Every structure is written in structure tokens, then in C-alpha cells.
């Protein structure tokens, strides 16, 4: 039996307006080489200047990951040549990163696992190189983007753990508002390393896996790799320390054709940037940047609102949704009702419109009002769904929609009696059958009455008036 050890290195793009060390816009998807200046293009004579917001976000993340925060964080140059790296060194951190020795609790299946964080460090991204036949095209818009690298200890065991970790981490950075966590667009990237050994022996020879553009690939690649290494070990083949790439078309990891040159990054202090010592005021703002973290929130949603684990899982996935939920409940709506609406009808409409809850016309106030209108018997559940449609399309309050569309429920027995009479007259044979004891036909009559009322008749009143008229 073998034991496996997985560690992750995650890079996130910090959601700042400008780049890490110059005033260029940090925008994704702009025309190539438009967000560039002499600094991020590495012209002679330029100097880096530290982005306040980006370094603050770095401290927020490190704090959320329970790291020891550096009182005197330092920058280093990491030296290696690469065509898309303008200076051929990356400004990064080495000796004194923003945070180190932290941890994060994540949920894997039904249990909670603590994953240790080795360090959290701030650095700059490189440009983008696009291969086109026998040429490569360089775009430096991304060069100098503020990046945060999070390095975990090898505390994960199988691919599923890593996938769960990434989902939790993605949710965390979205909660903190420091990154959109989009792995497909590359604003969150992950390299993984894995080693195996017979149980009890400890860490083995580390294999690094790159080119993992989704958490699904991370899972598949790691499980493939554990399998592969186990096979090697079974055969007594030595596992070599190497970097392998995930081939998503073949579902396998592959050794890099050309061995990377033995790297020696020659880290040394960045002479152009003085160390940064966070002031009390800065640290106060970092504290203010921390919100209730996802896992804690999920647990609170269960204990405070009686949601089940799956329900709380759904509600807490996005901070905006969780806030929305709690607000609607605060406004008086029943928690389970709010959950039901959010997880079914609202979700359907959001999908149909390819919108987020945040961008939609539905507010917590509107949903709470809609639910209370049902409870008060003003509208039926069925009408409520139509009202919801109108809210999405017209951006109006439910009361206004009901007014304009004449959707308010009819519960006046005299008004309903007219519908009942009409239907009874048109269905004399059925009425006789019911009177003869065939109760099953009652439902048919109710349906007909609802139909002629345009769905507005209050079902309970219809039932009682009909019963009285048919059976006396």
C-alpha cells in the first residue's frame, strides 16, 4: 500500500485597477499591447512602484488563511530568462513573504480537513506568448499584473481533495473580493505536486504537474499521476523528480520533451523597492477587508436557519447569494421558502437569462414580498411564478406587477360563486356524477373553475363554494 502527498501552488490575479508595479490598467482581454508603459515593458531606466491596493489584498488573503503576517515584508528578484518576461527577472518574494505558516479548513465530503499553508507571496505576472507556426507573438498586456501565490504543504491525499480544495479556495477569494477565481480565463491558476511512498515512509520524490486549467483537470491529473507512480513503484522503477504536463486530450500526464535547464533563480533583494512595514492603520483596513469566511457561514446558515447541509451548501456558494438569503429572511420570509425559490425558479430564470443574481432585477426585498403575498393569500404560488418572470423582465416590484396585470387573487365567495355556476351549468353530467357519489370528478370541476377565473380564484375558496353548491 502506498501513501500519496499532494501540495498545490495557486496563483491568483489580484483584482486591482492597475498593475503591480506601474500605473497601467490591469484589464483582461483588451487589444494586445495597449496596457503597456516603459515600466512593464522593461525599458532601460525604469523603476517599479508598489501598488497599495494589491499589497493590501495580499495581506487580506494571508490573514484569511490564518498566516503569520510579515511586519516587514521584502521583495526579491527571481532571475531566469523567458521571452515573455520583460526584465528577465520577476519581482517576487522569498525571504520575507506577506504571510507564512497558515492553514485553511476545507470540507471534503462530510469531514473537515485542515490544510497547512506554507506561504503567501506577492509577485508580478509575465506577458503572454501565442505560438503561431514558426513564429511566436508576444502581448505584454498581462506583464506586471499583480499576482499572489499561495503554496500549500503536501497535506492533500487524492485528486478529489485537491479539487475540493480549489473549489473552497476559489469561493474564499470571491468572498474576499480579491479575485474572480476564473480558472478558464487564467485569473486563477494551479500547479500541483505529488509524491508517493509506502505507508509510513513519508514524502517521496516530488513530481510537479503543470498546465491544469480547471479543477477537474487537477483531480484527473493527480489521480492519473498517483496511479502511474504506484505502477512504477510496483515494478521497482525509481521515480524521478520532474515536471510533467497534463494533456487534456489524452487524459494523461506527459514528461516535458526538453528537460528544463537546471534552474538557479539567484534570488536577491530587490534594490528598487524598500521593504514594506504595514502600519496600524493599514492593518486595520486589512481586518476590515476580512468577511465571514465561507465554511463558517455555511455552518451558521445550518444552525441559524435550520437549512440542511445541501441547502446551506447551495446558499453559501456565493457571498452575494448568502447575503441575499439572509436579507430576505430578515425581512420576514420563511428561510426554507427563500431557499426553494432561489434554488429552483430563480435559478432557472438566471440560467435562461445567463445572469448572476447580483445582475438580475430580483432583490431580497422583492423576493421577500413575493413570498409574503403568497402567504397572505394575495396570489397563488402559480401566479407568483408569473410575477417573478415579470420582475426579471420589467424590473418592477411585485405589487406593481400584480396591479398592472390584474393578478391579485380573487377570494370573494360571491365573485367565485359566479365562476362555479358557470362551470356547473356547462358540466351538468359531471355535477350529477359527483352528486351520485363520484368524488373523483370534483378535481375536474375545480380545474375548470380555475381556468375560467384566469387562475386568479383562490383555490381554498373555490373548494368550499363548489362543495356547498354541489353537495349542499
Amino acid at each position, binding site marked *: 500500500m502506498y501513501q500519496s502527498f499532494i501540495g498545490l501552488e495557486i496563483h491568483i490575479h489580484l483584482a486591482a485597477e492597475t498593475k503591480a508595479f506601474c500605473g*497601467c490598467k490591469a484589464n483582461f482581454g483588451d487589444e494586445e499591447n495597449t*496596457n503597456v508603459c516603459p515600466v512593464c515593458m522593461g525599458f532601460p531606466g525604469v523603476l517599479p512602484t*508598489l501598488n497599495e491596493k494589491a499589497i493590501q489584498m495580499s495581506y487580506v488573503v494571508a490573514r484569511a488563511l490564518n498566516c503569520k503576517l510579515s511586519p516587514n515584508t521584502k521583495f526579491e528578484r527571481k532571475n531566469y530568462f523567458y521571452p515573455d518576461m520583460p526584465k528577465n527577472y520577476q519581482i517576487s518574494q522569498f525571504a520575507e513573504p506577506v504571510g507564512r505558516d497558515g492553514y485553511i479548513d476545507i470540507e471534503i465530503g462530510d469531514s473537515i480537513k485542515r490544510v497547512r499553508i506554507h506561504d503567501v507571496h506577492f509577485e508580478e505576472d509575465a506577458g503572454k506568448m501565442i505560438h503561431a507556426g514558426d513564429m511566436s*507573438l508576444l502581448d505584454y498586456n498581462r506583464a506586471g499584473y499583480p499576482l499572489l501565490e499561495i503554496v500549500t504543504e503536501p497535506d492533500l491525499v487524492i485528486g478529489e481533495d485537491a479539487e475540493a480544495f480549489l473549489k473552497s479556495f476559489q469561493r474564499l477569494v470571491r468572498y474576499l473580493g480579491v479575485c474572480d477565481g476564473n480558472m478558464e480565463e487564467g485569473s486563477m491558476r494551479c500547479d500541483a505536486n505529488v509524491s508517493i511512498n509506502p505507508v509510513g515512509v513519508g514524502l517521496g520524490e516530488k513530481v510537479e504537474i503543470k498546465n491544469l486549467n480547471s479543477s477537474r483537470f487537477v483531480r484527473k491529473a493527480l489521480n492519473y499521476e498517483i496511479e502511474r507512480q504506484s505502477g512504477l513503484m510496483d515494478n521497482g522503477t525509481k521515480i524521478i523528480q520532474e515536471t510533467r504536463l497534463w494533456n487534456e486530450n489524452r487524459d494523461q500526464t506527459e514528461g516535458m520533451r526538453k528537460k528544463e535547464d537546471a534552474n538557479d533563480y539567484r534570488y536577491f533583494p530587490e*534594490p528598487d523597492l524598500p521593504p514594506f512595514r504595514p502600519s496600524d492603520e493599514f492593518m486595520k483596513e486589512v481586518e476590515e477587508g476580512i468577511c465571514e469566511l465561507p465554511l463558517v457561514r455555511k455552518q451558521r446558515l445550518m444552525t441559524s436557519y435550520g437549512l440542511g447541509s445541501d441547502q446551506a451548501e447551495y446558499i453559501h456558494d456565493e457571498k452575494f447569494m448568502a447575503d441575499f438569503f439572509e436579507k430576505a429572511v430578515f425581512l420576514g420570509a420563511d428561510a426554507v421558502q427563500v431557499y426553494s425559490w432561489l434554488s429552483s425558479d430563480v435559478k432557472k430564470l438566471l440560467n435562461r437569462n445567463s445572469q448572476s443574481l447580483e445582475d438580475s432585477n430580483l432583490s431580497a426585498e422583492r423576493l421577500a414580498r413575493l413570498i409574503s403575498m403568497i402567504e397572505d393569500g394575495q396570489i397563488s404560488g402559480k401566479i407568483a411564478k408569473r410575477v417573478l418572470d415579470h420582475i426579471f423582465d420589467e424590473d418592477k416590484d411585485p405589487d406593481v406587477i400584480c396591479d398592472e396585470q390584474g393578478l391579485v387573487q380573487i377570494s370573494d365567495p360571491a365573485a367565485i360563486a359566479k365562476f362555479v355556476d358557470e362551470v356547473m351549468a356547462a358540466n351538468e353530467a359531471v355535477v350529477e356524477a359527483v352528486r351520485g357519489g363520484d368524488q373523483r370528478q370534483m378535481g375536474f370541476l375545480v380545474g375548470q373553475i380555475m381556468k375560467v377565473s384566469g387562475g386568479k380564484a383562490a383555490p381554498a375558496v373555490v373548494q368550499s363554494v363548489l362543495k356547498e353548491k354541489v353537495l349542499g
Partner: protein
Amino acid sequence: MEKSDLTVTATLASLVLDEAETQKLGDEVSRMLSYFEKMSEIDVDGLEPTTHALQKENRLRPDRGLSNEAQPDELLECAPDLEDRFILIPNVL
């Protein structure tokens, strides 16, 4: 300094040295390195390295877009090889 050491160093520095350079620069690097051995004479245990001479205060740049006197197009014009707005480099398949 061994010749292989020089080659590794040159590769790290993205330099290729021809025969003559390997000889000449190798000698000069070695001469300087032996000169640097002088530093082993002085005891500096307990002293902090000086990485920044006089800095005492934090410096931060507000996260707001800055206009620069150099336009992106001017920067691109400096590149040896361009295709539209891309900088072009060779890459044999």
C-alpha cells in the same frame, strides 16, 4: 574557476561564449574571484547586510491609472520585429 562552472554561469546569464572568450573572460572572472577572496579576512558576523542604504519609510502607489508620456505605439516601434500590435519572435517547430 572550472571551465564547466563558467559554462553553467554563462548559460544562466544567457550568454554564449566562443573559444577565445571562454579563455579570456574565464581568466578575468577567475582573477576577480580570487581578488574577492580578500573578503574572507574580515569578520562581519552579527552585522545585518545593507540592502537599502537609507530607506526608512514605506512607499506605496495609489491604485489609480497613470497616464504615461510614452504611448504604447511608441514603445512598439522600438521592437525589431512587429506584426500588427504583436511583437514577433522566431520559434522553429
